[in-house]
């Protein structure tokens, strides 16, 4: 769930957001495939899993007023395929926070596990916050 209690100033390297859980249901996968204009193959597309993680991330970041969050870069590594209907748990932490003039950058570390605690994917996302 989004952690609204923390302020943007308090987001410092090492901070861990509360984990979020998603059920990758058939209806979720169908919606995702329709949105990306693609066909399925019986498994959850890995980028659909990342989409959940990124959405959880952007919801979790307590943005300063009048700020927009722009996804600047993404690194990903896939470890296993996930069947439709599986439940995943996403962990997001702050790796770096950089402020240069009117631009702030958050580098976040993402890790996704399945119900058996096996790693599904990991990555890093850079979110730019022009203020």
């Amino acid at each position, binding site marked *: 769930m989004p952690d609204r209690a923390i302020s943007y100033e308090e987001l410092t390297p090492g901070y861990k957001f509360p984990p979020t859980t998603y059920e990758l249901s058939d209806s979720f996968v169908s919606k995702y495939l329709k949105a990306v*204009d693609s066909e399925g193959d019986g498994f959850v597309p890995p980028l*659909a899993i990342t*989409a959940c993680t990124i*959405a959880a991330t952007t919801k979790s970041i307590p943005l300063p007023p009048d700020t927009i969050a722009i996804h600047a870069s*993404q690194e990903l590594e896939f470890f296993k395929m996930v069947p439709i209907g599986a439940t995943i748990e996403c962990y997001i932490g702050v790796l770096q926070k950089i402020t240069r003039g009117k631009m702030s950058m958050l580098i976040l570390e993402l890790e996704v596990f399945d119900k058996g605690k096996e790693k599904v994917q990991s990555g890093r996302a850079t979110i730019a916050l022009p203020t």
Partner: protein
Amino acid sequence: MLTEIQEGKAFDSVVKHITQEKINLYAEASGDFNPIHIDESFAAKTPLGGTIAHGMLSLAYVSEMMTSAFGRNWLSEGKLRAKFKEPAHPGDTLTINGKIDCIEQEDDVSYANCSFECRNQKGEMIVTGETIVKFSSDKK
């Protein structure tokens, strides 16, 4: 799927047209309702001048190209590094191209190091990056 994995091999291009409807569908599917993607009056007042597609939507097209080329090898053990250079707007047509730059061998496993780019109809770079896909050497 590629029948032969060799250096310089280009993947089949993926071409997608971005619409606000697709962006809204993506927001609904992913749960990412950032107003810069879906609220046209909000987005018009920002320096971006209007709504933009989620970066992960463009990246999904890259993954589609990689899946067509490598199938499950990509889905289960792929690696990706991407930079979002410019936003994609509704009305844009994105073309995603990629190729195998080099193949590295480590013991009995080979790694295809690939590059990709996603450009809009004006030729502007939207996303660029690299991928790595592990595969068994007998496919080479």
